[in-house]
């Protein structure tokens, strides 16, 4: 009988139930979309933020003290100690190697130009193809680490093209203007170790100091500045977990000060400090340090984005709770005769509430499931418009949304149930 009553109520008052289901579907779709994006957005935002460049730099141990004391890292002097080019691949072999998105070596030197002025020349990878011992392959270099560079003229150097000139170079827009050079021109550069003509493949606008520089292929700079196989520094872009208490403790007091259990946790979490530590372990005589602003702002932007999503989710659920409470209250009000009658013929309050709640819950389940699939669509639309990639649907969102829908539906039904309990049959049945 219970089910006959439910069935009657559901099928013979379809339009009302559909309204309730739609309200719930809206809430559930927003919750689904937001939760999925929130869980997936960490990766997405990090990938976005990678556009702002490296968050870790690696320099030789001996130089790091001098560099930071006197800020000599302007290329005007050739550094005393060097890292080895052959160690570069080891960066991908650390515990958090999977989180290393990109990296590139640098060789810096001051060069004298044909008009007698000096400029900084940097040798680096542009899109260097690496085949690691582990069998993993990747493209690394400044093409993606300097994704905000605007190529005003010419194009990026493509290391994977056969036709690339061995002396190809990119020149900063300010320097190009000063020298009056254009794409296709060659310029002479000189150092103590020799001279070289560079062929300008493109002019970039970096919007900063780098506009006064030249960038060329690693071997060219090595020959002019140091020696084959040596590099000055490495820039690394890594996915990191925002710092917390433990990370700060490790950063200020050093990992040695941590208890073994804390050390374990710290080491196995992708904090920027633990990734730096692991890079130092992998590359002999190196010091890896976080580029503060970038690393920290990544964490905060991520936190803020997620906070925003949580707020949207809460608001949308609150909205559906209000909508549901309106609809359900209206429906109970409309049915007050029926409810009064059921009470009059001897139905106890809990049995009537049970029927009303069951109807609403069934409607909620239908709406919730529909909403989940709508939310899937929303998430993909948002993913494609905002992050230009699809959002991965996390299974854990399903129970989460289910629980939220149940809570919201029950909360939305409270006013209606209270009304139902207060209703006195004598007041509705004699037609007053």
């Amino acid at each position, binding site marked *: *009988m*219970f089910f006959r009553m439910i069935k009657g*109520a559901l099928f*013979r008052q379809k339009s009302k139930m559909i309204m309730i289901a739609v309200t719930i579907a809206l809430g559930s779709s927003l919750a689904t979309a937001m939760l999925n994006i929130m869980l997936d957005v960490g990766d997405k935002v990090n990938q976005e933020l990678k556009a702002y460049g490296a968050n870790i730099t690696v320099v030789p141990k001996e130089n790091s003290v001098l560099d930071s004391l006197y800020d000599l890292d302007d290329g005007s002097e050739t550094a005393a100690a060097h890292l080895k080019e052959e160690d570069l691949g080891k960066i991908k072999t650390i515990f958090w190697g999977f989180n290393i998105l990109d990296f590139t070596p640098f060789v810096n030197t001051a060069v004298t130009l044909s008009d007698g002025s000096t400029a900084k020349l940097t040798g680096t990878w542009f899109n260097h193809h690496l085949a690691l011992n582990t069998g993993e392959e990747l493209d690394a270099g400044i093409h993606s680490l300097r994704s905000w560079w605007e190529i005003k003229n010419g194009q990026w150097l493509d290391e994977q093209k056969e036709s690339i000139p061995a002396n190809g170079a990119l020149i900063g827009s300010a320097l190009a203007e000063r020298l009056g050079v254009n794409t296709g021109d060659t310029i002479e550069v000189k150092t103590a170790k020799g001279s070289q003509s560079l062929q300008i493949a493109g002019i970039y606008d970096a919007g900063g100091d780098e506009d006064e520089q030249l960038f060329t292929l690693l071997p060219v700079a090595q020959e002019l500045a140091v020696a084959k196989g040596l590099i000055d520094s490495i820039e690394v872009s890594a996915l990191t977990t925002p710092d917390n208490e433990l990370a700060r403790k490790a950063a200020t007091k050093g990992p040695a000060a941590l208890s073994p259990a804390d050390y374990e946790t710290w080491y196995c979490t992708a904090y920027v400090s633990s990734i730096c530590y692991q890079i130092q372990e992998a590359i002999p005589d190196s010091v890896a340090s976080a580029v503060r602003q970038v690393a920290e702002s990544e964490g905060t932007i991520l936190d803020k984005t997620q906070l925003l999503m949580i707020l949207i989710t809460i608001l949308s659920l609150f909205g559906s709770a209000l909508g549901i409470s309106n609809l359900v209250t209206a429906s109970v009000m409309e049915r007050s005769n029926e409810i009064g009658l*059921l009470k009059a*013929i*001897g139905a*106890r309050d809990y049995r009537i509430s049970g029927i009303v709640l069951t109807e609403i819950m069934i409607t909620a389940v239908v709406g919730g499931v529909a909403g989940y699939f709508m939310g899937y669509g929303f998430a993909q639309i948002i993913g494609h418009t905002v992050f230009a990639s699809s959002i991965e649907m996390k299974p854990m969102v399903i129970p989460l949304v289910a629980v939220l829908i149940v809570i919201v539906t029950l909360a939305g039904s409270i006013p209606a149930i209270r009304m139902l309990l207060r209703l*006195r049959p004598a007041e509705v049945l004699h*037609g007053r």
Partner: protein
Amino acid sequence: MSLLELKNVSKIYGPLKALDNVNLQVENGEWLAIMGPSGSGKSTMMNIIGCMDKPSLGEVILDGVDIAKESGKKLTEIRRDKIGLIFQQFHLVNYLTAVENVMVSQYYHSMPDEKEALEALERVGLKDRAKHLPSQLSGGEQQRVCIARALINHPEIVLADEPTGNLDEANENIVIDLFRQLHREGTTLIVVTHDPEVAEVAQRTVVLEHGRLVKEIMNESFET
């Protein structure tokens, strides 16, 4: 002992005495009609007897129990087990069929039994309308479904508040005939009515005015 006894019952709404010191006894198996002008307190009295309301003063003893003193839960039980209710506005559940409306009463009483419910509809002449929704039934038919529902659990006492108020002559007669049958079977009947013809067929008529019982008429020519 009487089945029902009202002792000095008053129902007071602010300055208004909807019932004013009413004393009334109803015997088991009796058929009583209550008449009176509009606003005289008839429905108020029915609500109190039907355990849907409590008196402000006085005792209401139904089957030896003072229902003025019982809790809401106990009153629901008494309504369910002892009382059958019939209203002027038929009050059917509009999304359930005729037979389902009867079964609802069984469901809250004990166990729904479709066969028995169909028999009850047959008794009020509606067997072929069992699968219809209330909106597909005429007023008279709806009231007969209500009667079938009121009778399905074999109540000791049937309370009808203007059961024929919304019916035409023909349907009124069908309802009166059903009451006759019930009376013959020994059910106690209390019927509120404006209609002298409906009152005339009862064994006894009491008249309310301004909440007071002002007159009592025995029907000399009563026939079963």
